């Protein structure tokens, strides 16, 4: 075990994957000499050389497009998009090409690219350095989408992503890159996809979150405990594939559900979780499902704390849910 920050754990995961397999290469803007604008790729150029750590021109289309070609040829590229907000020039390559390559070729051309992208608000990044638009990608058949919230999961999910056979969007909650530290297992630590993590057990209500909302919800749960409300906190950590079993089992026990994400509410991933519960756990529910989310506004700069769900909003939603039935 080693104590690491979340971004250090990403770095460690990349380094270990590159040591283990010469087919793993890293590409993106400023990932080489500069070690990434968040330092996620720090030291990789020095250790692995410019053949494996590619500082690319400023073109997300080019980054993901060329990564797809590398993957088709048999390499395991890990492409960094500097901020999720800047992924759209590559949206076509991701949605039309990467996600569909295996399917459209009848399985002849699997295409395994890991796209890493820091996402989310709380860093005073304004409209274009803060968004949480995972739902666009969850909506696309053929992509896996995972979001760690702890250093151990950051490394473990990243190692799994790089070893996987399918394209993976690996979203990194940049707000907690350095604020969260934790013990990370040494060596080949892997966290399987499609398995949620119980952050704390509880009996009155299930609160589902992922990424930077997990610490927010955990804080809320501690406050609720003092009021005598026992909240179970589940970190989904893998949105596609989703651990429906864990979601349903938890609500089967508690009978109440609150879903929390910083993404805008309309068609956000919380809608999917709520729909699964409505379809499959309706008769276990004692109260309406609640969502605590970003608002349906663009992401505001000066007032980001108004936009982002904090422990207070989670506490309020949980209280309402518990009182409702």
């Amino acid at each position, binding site marked *: 075990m080693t104590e690491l920050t979340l971004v250090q754990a990403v770095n460690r995961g990349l380094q270990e994957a590159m040591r283990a397999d010469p087919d793993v290469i890293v590409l993106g803007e400023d990932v080489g000499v500069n070690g990434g604008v968040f330092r996620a790729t720090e030291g990789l150029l020095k250790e692995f050389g410019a053949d494996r750590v590619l500082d690319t021109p400023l073109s997300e289309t080019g980054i993901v497009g060329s990564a797809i070609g590398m993957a088709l040829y048999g390499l395991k590229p890990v492409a960094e998009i500097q901020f999720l907000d800047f992924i759209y020039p590559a949206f076509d390559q991701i949605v039309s090409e990467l996600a*569909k390559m*295996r399917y459209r070729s009848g399985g002849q051309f699997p295409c395994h690219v890991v796209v890493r992208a820091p996402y989310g608000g709380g860093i005073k990044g304004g409209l274009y350095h803060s968004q949480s638009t995972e739902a666009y990608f969850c909506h696309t058949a053929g992509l896996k989408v995972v979001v760690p919230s702890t250093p151990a999961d950051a490394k473990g999910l990243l190692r799994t992503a790089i070893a996987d*056979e399918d394209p993976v969007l690996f979203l990194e909650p940049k707000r907690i890159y350095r604020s969260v530290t934790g013990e990370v297992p040494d060596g080949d630590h892997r966290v399987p996809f499609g398995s949620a993590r119980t952050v704390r057990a509880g009996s009155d209500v299930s609160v589902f979150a992922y990424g930077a909302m997990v610490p927010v919800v955990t804080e809320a749960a501690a406050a609720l405990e003092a009021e005598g409300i026992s909240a179970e906190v589940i970190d989904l950590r893998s949105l596609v594939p989703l651990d429906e079993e864990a979601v349903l089992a938890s609500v089967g026990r508690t009978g109440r559900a609150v879903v929390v994400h910083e993404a805008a509410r309309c068609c956000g991933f919380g809608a999917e979780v709520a729909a699964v519960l409505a379809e499959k756990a309706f008769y276990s529910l004692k109260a309406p499902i609640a969502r605590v989310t970003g608002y349906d506004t663009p992401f505001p700069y000066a007032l980001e704390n108004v936009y982002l769900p904090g422990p207070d909003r989670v506490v309020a939603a949980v209280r309402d849910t518990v009182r409702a039935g």
Partner: protein
Amino acid sequence: MAATASRPSAPAPSEDRLGGARLVDAYRAMVLARALDERCLSLQRQGRIGFYAPHAGQEAALVGSALAVAAEDWVFPAYREMTVALVRGASLQAVVDQLFGDAGDLAKGRQMPNHFAFRDQHFVSASSPIGTQIPQAVGAAMAARYRKQAITTITYFGDGATSSNDFHAGLNFAGVFRAPTIFFCQNNEWAISLPRERQTRSSTLAMKAEAYGFPGVVVDGNDVNAVYAAVRAARARAVAGDGPTLIEAQVYRFGPHSTSDDPRRYRADAQVEEARRRDPVARLRAELLAAQLLDEAADAALAEEARTRIGEAIGRAEATPALEPLSIFDDVFAQPTARLAEQRTDCAAHLAPGGRSS
């Protein structure tokens, strides 16, 4: 994955012209391409296939380029390149099965006609969005170089695609990384209804390469040997480590953009007639007759052979069973997720005789 070393390798680097039997082979491939094209248009009109995008007028560009690269090279095609796949050894049956979307289609009926994928021929799955294959070809070339495999990738696209952001991203990456890639642009003068002048103010498409720091060449796409020589030279540069080349093969699209298009809305028949005087198939035929590499009887036999092969392949395709409906759930991921397994079960129940209807 390892490059397939067992296949025939590239022609000798010194060879920059097709002659003798190889030129006759090129002609045979072009005759097959033309006959297949005509037949596919009529199959679509008869409602036997759903769609078709013809390549008549582009046969010399297709065959000349395909013969100039090696089996271990990789092709990143658009949708008019079935002939390239055939030259690389894809079976005519596999091509026809794709058009029919039947159980013989290697891509399992997942795409419209013309969107081929042939793993064994290193012929990467084509898609509809224009230009997306261009940066992919660059990445594959970079990967090959990383693996120290002296191969090249060739990507096919049209004049319209030179306006796409993927074109610029791809050429720019190739220039910066000196990728061993051949950008093969078939300028057929039209992008559906828009003439080439509407895509760019540049006097040629080839000249765009200069801004990315590598050569661009214009070649007469109706001359199979001119195309062959240009691609041979580009390939030699690429494998020598000298980087990419953009080739603009000037051709003309004789037919409609696709079976959904009516070209009379935007171009005069006279222009088509004029272009047809430069027909690449007729041109090579005349050359071969003049060089006595072919006579009328042998020519007629080639045409007959093409028609017979095509007819047989269509017959077999129409006798091939339809795809298994539940196969729509395969190949989304390497292994189906629990959710896909559940939807598959649902769909199966719905499809079963007397099955539930929700």
